């Protein structure tokens, strides 16, 4: 009896040792804006990603993970140093996270030229969806313009005739208004671009009120959005005109805006209220663990972790076989918090886009309610420029 149990222990020990040798942790680099005024975005992305990793006992696809977190500080030059370190020193085969498009563009060529997979859970710049697409790049969120396109379609469906548009005077501001027009398909009565550092919009809002529009389209991301919506409310326009937005009211700004955002409409592929089993589970687990409502940045990052989980399991941890791993990622064989989700040939998603309105729910919390689904099963407008099959 003694001998047998000793022998058994020996075998178990050997088995454990060999499995430990086989299970070298797989390294994933996680980059994002984790400090400064936009730090909340990257933090939500990271927390949601780690929610999946920690729930699976530190594993994705059954393989132990080592997540190397790096702050890109919203500075392209810092991002470049971070990417050099991740690729050359840590030798990561996969990079996840990615918050801002300008940071993504700055590091993109180096990453895909090194044949490192980059899974962006937020930024979706048009060149990467279009002409510069790469087998190593996957966009899990959406192409940036799509959040504007859905609102343009919504405005067209509602029959608004006189739409007035406002955005900050920089590339993204122009891209969003162009995206809106692509699906609104009528001329706007006015397009106003304010300097990017301008925080007071009262004078522009007075001009806007005098133009007597049917509806207003605005794109003011982050802190600018809080400013814009608060002043919109203070100017009394909120009671008179529908405010259609993209990336202006989101999970990060809504807690600061509260009742000031009531009635504001925005276009997005996700809301914490979407009734899919995986979404209910995600929102409940995220709230329990971090004690706050997840934002869209968290939701898409959670999806990116599920995507990696499914793909790594498919190749049994052998991500060195790049062709097989790419096919496994492209299959998108996971249950998304956004319901239907698949990759287009340019490796950007095809998914449903909704119009949401900010409401106060019966629990007294400010959240978004689905108004319409103007663009079901929507693919981005740049895919045709991507030569990949």
């Amino acid at each position, binding site marked *: 009896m003694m001998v047998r149990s000793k022998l058994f222990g020996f075998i178990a020990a050997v088995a454990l040792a060999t499995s430990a040798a086989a299970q070298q942790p797989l390294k994933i680099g996680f980059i994002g804006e984790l400090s400064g*005024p936009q730090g909340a975005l990257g933090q939500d992305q990271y927390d949601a990603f780690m929610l999946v990793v920690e729930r699976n006992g530190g594993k994705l696809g059954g393989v132990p993970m080592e997540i190397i977190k790096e702050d890109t500080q919203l500075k392209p030059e810092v991002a470049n140093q971070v990417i050099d370190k991740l690729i050359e020193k840590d030798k990561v085969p996969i990079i996840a996270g990615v918050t801002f498009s300008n940071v993504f563009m700055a590091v993109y060529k180096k990453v895909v030229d090194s044949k490192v997979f980059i899974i962006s859970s937020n930024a979706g710049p048009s060149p990467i969806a279009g002409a510069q697409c790469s087998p190593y790049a996957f966009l899990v969120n959406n192409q940036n313009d799509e959040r504007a396109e859905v609102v343009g379609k919504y405005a067209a469906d509602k029959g608004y005739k006189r739409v007035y548009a406002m955005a900050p*005077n920089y590339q993204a501001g122009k891209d969003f208004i162009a995206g809106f027009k692509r699906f609104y398909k009528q001329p706007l009565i006015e*397009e106003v671009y304010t300097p990017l550092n301008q925080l*007071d919009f*009262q*004078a522009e809002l*007075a*001009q806007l009120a005098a133009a007597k529009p049917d509806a207003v389209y605005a794109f003011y991301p982050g802190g600018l959005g*809080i400013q814009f919506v608060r002043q919109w409310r203070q100017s009394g326009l909120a009671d008179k005109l529908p405010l259609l937005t993209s990336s202006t009211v989101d999970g990060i700004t809504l807690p600061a805006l509260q009742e000031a955002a009531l009635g504001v409409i925005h276009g997005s592929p996700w809301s914490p209220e979407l009734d899919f089993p995986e979404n209910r589970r995600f929102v409940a687990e995220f709230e329990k663990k971090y004690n706050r409502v997840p934002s869209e940045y968290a939701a898409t990052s959670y999806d990116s972790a599920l995507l990696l989980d499914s793909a790594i399991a498919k190749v049994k941890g052998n991500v060195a076989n790049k062709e097989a791993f790419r096919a496994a990622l492209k299959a998108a064989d996971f249950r998304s918090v956004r319901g239907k989700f698949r990759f287009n040939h340019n490796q950007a998603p095809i998914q449903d886009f909704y119009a949401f309105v900010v409401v106060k729910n019966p629990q007294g919390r400010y959240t978004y309610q689905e108004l319409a689904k103007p663009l079901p099963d929507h693919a981005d407008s740049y895919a045709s420029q991507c030569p990949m099959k």
Partner: protein
Amino acid sequence: MTWELLLVQSLNGLQYGVLLFLLAAGLTLVLGIMNFVNLAHASLYMMGAYLGAAAFAKTGSFLVAGAAAVLGTLAIGLIVERTTLLAFYARDHLDQVLATFGLILFFNELVRVIWGAQSVYMRPPQGFTGTVDLLGATYPSYRFLVIVAGLAVALALYVLIHHTRVGMLIRAGASNPRMVSVLGVNIRLLNSLLFGLSAALAGLSGLMAAPILAVQPGMGDNVLIVVLVVIVIGGIGSIRGAFFGALIVGVVDTVGRTYLPLILRQVAERSVADAAGPALASMLIFIFMAAVLALRPQGLFPARR
């Protein structure tokens, strides 16, 4: 273009001007009378906004927030003056610029440590969240409150400067500081008093701006440049100059921002006008300042000597 719109835009210019005046009044006194360049004025404005927003979030009372902002910045101003700036009064302007610029960095980092890098948002006080009707035009009631309060402070300053003994000394100090000290006035005490007053006005300005703008580290840095423009236009050391200079800058900036792109469209193609309009509008006050400097280098309303 209706006259209601013109009225609203004029009020917007006035409201911006009034906020600028509260900042410019203190800065111009310190610069004109103490001959001291205080860039840290921007930090006192920021501290006023932070202290007011924090007190308002805690108590919900705008009066408590006002007391916290004004008394808090008064205290900070006096402490900074006694401990740091006193040593720089006799030094040249470049040393003063470097020292007070250092203070800006210090305060920006301090608020980041205490309140974080994220912006803080303050609500308007109860009863001032909606709009008021003025002769058929709709105007945000909080901004109207800012105009009324700012004009009231301007009136109080006028009485203080022109009809009190302290005001007389301040005016005398502006005209001839050496003569004032020779006459046996405690110029050191007068300096501290002035610096405290200047700090409290900056704090009040920060508090009033807080419900309109985002309270964030470095929020005073941009506005400081505009305030310096106001002082140059109005004339250094002149409260009257600060008042009219601030109103002129407020109106020129607001009206320029809204009408310049529209005017440009009459003469240029729309895409060109849309690109050039906002850029030109943001330069307008600097062009105006350059014109004033060229034609009247002492400012439009200089202190009487």
